[in-house]
């Protein structure tokens, strides 16, 4: 902790981020601008999520960090070590033991509780950006709740391919008011956001936006009555634990085309296998 304030950020910066978080919670799904600070990690490493985590974290928190469902990737390990060092917090790989979970690209399979906070790292917070590059225009669309552009895009998908082709970062409506990017989680995870007991906070570092979904808030994938949102999941069981309800990664096992499917959520998979290796501190 030498030379750093607790959790790295100075107190005025934390206050500014905290004020933004509270307004984000009061207006579910609305992107609140904030004065992002330079962090000692490059963009793409989750600086938005890190700033949100740094602003909320206290000495008695237990932090879990996952990247694509895994606790042991370089990105997850770096962030966990960072907070161990600058905040001295306990870390864990076990979903149920964590009070704060920072994530990139997944929602844990283990259902979250209302005493937990899920912090998402967000690369592109604006769900309309790919359809309308002007920030002023998209801001106006959110102000009017005018999401016709996104409906047209989805409908064109259905007309051309018979289904919506978005498999990650599937746009969702929050509290029936705001169109929101759930971050690049698989569409499979989107339904977990609906009425989740845990508070969900989203931090985008480069674009300097924070948004939130309070507990028990309606989150529904944008769809059509005649083409309802359909879950996409590989039709396999996990090779390691046998789970048939988890999101799976396809892993190539040899150079002759051999492959298997295993849970993307490593803690969930280890827990189901009763694996002692998932216990303790992986930092």
């Amino acid at each position, binding site marked *: 902790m030498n030379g750093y304030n607790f959790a790295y950020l100075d107190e005025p910066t934390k206050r500014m981020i905290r004020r933004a978080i509270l*307004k984000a919670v009061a207006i579910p799904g609305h992107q609140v601008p904030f004065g992002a600070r330079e962090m000692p990690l490059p963009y793409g490493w989750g600086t938005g999520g890190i700033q949100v985590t740094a602003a909320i974290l206290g000495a008695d928190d237990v932090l879990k960090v996952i990247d694509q469902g895994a606790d042991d990737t370089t990105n997850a390990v770096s962030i966990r070590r960072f907070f161990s060092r600058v905040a001295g917090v306990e870390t864990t790989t076990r979903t149920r033991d964590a009070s704060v979970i920072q994530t990139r690209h997944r929602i844990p399979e283990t259902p979250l509780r209302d005493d937990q906070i899920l912090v998402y790292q967000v690369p592109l917070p604006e769900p309309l950006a790919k359809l309308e590059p002007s920030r002023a225009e998209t801001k106006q669309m959110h102000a009017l709740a005018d999401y016709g552009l996104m409906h047209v895009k989805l409908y064109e998908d259905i007309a051309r391919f018979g289904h919506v082709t978005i498999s990650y970062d599937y746009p969702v409506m929050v509290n029936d008011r705001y169109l929101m990017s759930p971050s690049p989680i698989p569409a499979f995870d989107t339904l977990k956001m609906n009425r989740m007991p845990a508070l969900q906070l989203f931090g985008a570092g480069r674009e300097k936006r924070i948004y939130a979904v309070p507990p028990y808030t309606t989150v529904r994938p944008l769809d059509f009555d005649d083409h309802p949102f359909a879950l996409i999941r590989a039709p396999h069981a996990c090779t390691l634990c046998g789970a048939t309800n988890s999101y799976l990664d396809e892993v190539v096992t040899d150079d002759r085309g051999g492959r298997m499917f295993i849970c993307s959520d490593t803690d969930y998979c280890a827990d189901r296998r009763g694996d002692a290796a998932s216990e303790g501190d992986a930092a």
Partner: protein
Amino acid sequence: MTLEKPGFIDPVAEAQACFRLVLRTMSSPGQIVTLANPVAAPPLTPATAAVLLTLVDAEVSLWLDEPLADSWDWLAFHAGVVRATDIGSAAFLCTTRLPPLAEVFAGTDAAPETGATIILQVPSLEGGKKLTLYGPGLETPIVIAPQGLPADFVAQWEQNHRIFPRGIDLLLCAGSSFCALPRSVRIGEG
């Protein structure tokens, strides 16, 4: 006299702990939380004082009503807060009587987050008229009964909710406890 009243003893840890309580109350409308380390700074109650130290500083403007005006020196010293000249321009209002919500800045449709936060110091969070809360943050509707709200509060709040996503967020503080009514919540009588 002001400097005899300290702020947080451990500013970093206490501000974090208080913020997490504020975050919990804003995430769970109506849920009452109590501070572990109250701040003694009358005429502010311990909860009001801690919430102000946690949220306001030189970057935001604050409006105080007359019964709390003695706290300006303490707030200037501990928070460096900027004094708002009138109700309509303040980002934060700290008050013992709810001003007409229509006079408070509610933000714009494009930037609703600029709507003000009111910290209302009330006699008690219990024993008043029953209000039922519905909306985001609530698994099922809950009932609260704070004292010290104006008689037409439900009608005022209905208007505040009607202009959503614009609106005003309200923190109710009594003693060392507080609860929140974010603008997203709907309130029914009884």
